[in-house]
């Protein structure tokens, strides 16, 4: 027994130099050293040729395939067709409208992601309620703007449009389905379950075919649904089913006590769901929701099968141009890179969101 309490001391110094770090982590044992050496040698073999081909020997500009050498990549294929890759067949003198749409998008996303900006509630309200209408007016036309039919839309613009509308619409729809599947009311529960199981069990391609080929057979001839709109509805219906199951996972993780607590305070079902349960559940399912968003973003390229030219489809179409034969690698690399960049951005944003929403537990 000692009479004196031991005072708190500082922890021992942990910082180590590069040399010590690499000794501890890269060359700790013989197998570790061998692995490190092999991997570095592998990178030495792989990286220089890739850099040589992709950057140093590459041709960046040119008007047709003859401008390119055989040694390096032919990015000229991409730069020359960049307009088409971004806007599809949107008329050149109206491309400013698409630019305004892009600018609006960047501004909104920036506004919502950067922490210090004021009035987030209003901006979010605009993004969800007004922006779809404004964007439709901008891109489609009417009210003073020349109409550009949707079959002229394409490229990255179409990809972003499909993905964004799909995400924004499928999330609330999915939440309602998830609540429905957990409802006490048997009819609602059965309908939600049937919906989810039906749409989840069908390939997206089938849904898109149905939407574009079969649907017109069932509605009267006078009713003309826009093809893009039909594809969009198909995508939303399909993704909502996936979203519902992700959200349901989150709902099930909320302890029963939370439901009892809001109930015992006299809050109604909807008040409790919106104020108590969903905020907690949605925080838990951010990784799952973003996973679904990323899958959705990439699935939009399937609209190719019903004759809509998204980014990938338009790159593919460009490969058949007689002036640019044989640049498939560059084309696919470019398309892949753009898809990756957007998906990685979403992933990063979701990680930051998770950190921001973390409240000490």
């Amino acid at each position, binding site marked *: 027994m000692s009479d004196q309490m031991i005072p708190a001391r500082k922890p021992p110094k942990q910082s180590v130099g590069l040399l010590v770090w690499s000794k501890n982590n890269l060359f700790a044992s013989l197998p570790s050293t061998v692995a490190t050496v092999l991997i570095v040698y592998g990178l030495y073999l792989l990286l220089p040729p890739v850099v040589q081909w992709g950057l140093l020997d590459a041709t960046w500009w040119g008007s047709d395939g003859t401008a390119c050498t055989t040694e390096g990549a032919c990015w000229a294929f991409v730069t020359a067709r960049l307009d088409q890759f971004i806007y599809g067949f949107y008329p050149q003198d109206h491309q400013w409208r698409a630019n305004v749409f892009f600018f609006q998008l960047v501004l909104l996303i920036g506004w919502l992601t950067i922490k210090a900006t004021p009035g987030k509630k209003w901006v979010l309200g605009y993004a969800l309620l007004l922006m779809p209408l404004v964007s439709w007016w901008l891109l489609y036309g009417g009210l003073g703007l020349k109409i550009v039919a949707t079959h002229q839309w394409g490229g990255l613009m179409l990809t972003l449009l499909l993905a964004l509308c799909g995400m924004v619409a499928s999330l609330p729809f999915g939440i309602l389905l998830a609540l429905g599947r957990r409802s006490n009311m048997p009819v609602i529960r059965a309908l939600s379950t049937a919906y989810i199981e039906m749409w989840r069990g069908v390939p997206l391609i089938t849904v898109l075919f149905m939407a574009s080929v079969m649907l017109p057979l069932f509605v009267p001839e006078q009713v003309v649904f826009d093809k893009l709109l039909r594809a969009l509805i198909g995508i939303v219906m399909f993704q909502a089913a996936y979203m519902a199951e992700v959200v349901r996972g989150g709902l099930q993780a909320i*302890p029963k*006590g*939370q439901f*009892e*607590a*809001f*109930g*015992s*305070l*006299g*809050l*109604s079902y909807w*008040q409790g769901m919106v*104020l*108590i349960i969903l*905020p*907690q559940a949605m*925080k838990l399912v951010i990784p799952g929701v973003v996973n679904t968003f990323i899958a959705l973003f990439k699935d939009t390229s399937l609209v190719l099968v019903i004759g809509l030219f998204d980014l990938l489809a338009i790159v593919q179409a460009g490969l058949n141009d007689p002036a640019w034969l044989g640049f498939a690698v560059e084309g696919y690399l470019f398309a892949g890179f753009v898809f990756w960049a957007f998906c990685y951005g979403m992933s990063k944003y979701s990680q930051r969101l998770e950190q921001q*929403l973390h*409240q*000490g*537990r």
Partner: protein
Amino acid sequence: MIDYLDEPCLQKPLSQTLEQKASSLIDIRGLNKWYGQFHVLRDIDLQIHKGEKVVICGPSGSGKSTLIRCINCLEEHQQGSIVVDGTRLTNDLDNIETIRREVGMVFQQFNLFPHLTILENCTLAPIWVRKQAKKEAEKVAMEYLERVQIPDQAHKYPGQLSGGQQQRVAIARSLCMNPEVMLFDEPTSALDPEMIKEVLDVMIELAREGMTMLCVTHEMGFARTVADRVIFMDEGQIIEQAPPAEFFDNPRSERTRQFLGQVLNH
């Protein structure tokens, strides 16, 4: 399931409500409840008057938690009637919400809302259910937080508080709704021994101020100090009820003596 009349929650409100004693804040008659085949509550009759403090004790599985959870319809009962402050508990959602507004509940596991601050936890129901202005609700919440002695934690999240502090917030959160009666479902069972006292102190203070309280607890010292009546339950029945002095010193049933012997002598 076919015989709907057997389910009191589905019965229409009866005029019988008026006949029941006006002085009883809670009036339970002929209450029966089953979990599947298991008969949890058997012919419970219980009247609680305004301002009365009642402690319910009994071995685990005796149905005491289930009983108080029936009072605000967290559990549905199958037979009998429960009337709270003149409102009969039926399947009608409006009635359930009316009763829940008047009945505060404190849980064993606190059940604070982890994504809201302490202050927001307390103001949520007054704002959304009582339609109070935010300023007003915050003022009232701060008063109650002061009474449970944690006003300085108002802007923290529940996860940053100790168990005892969380339970005191849970009490304040219920009080903010200005309930007619408070139900406590083993409020100190999940707490470390050091923190039990701070929660009991708040409850004793509340009892002194005249709040009607119905409390399931194993804290026999608390029962002795505060209760007007102690109820002993076993196997879904009320075995014995008496004022604490009589209950502890002179229990009538053998089962009660056995139980008291187990909880008091260790």
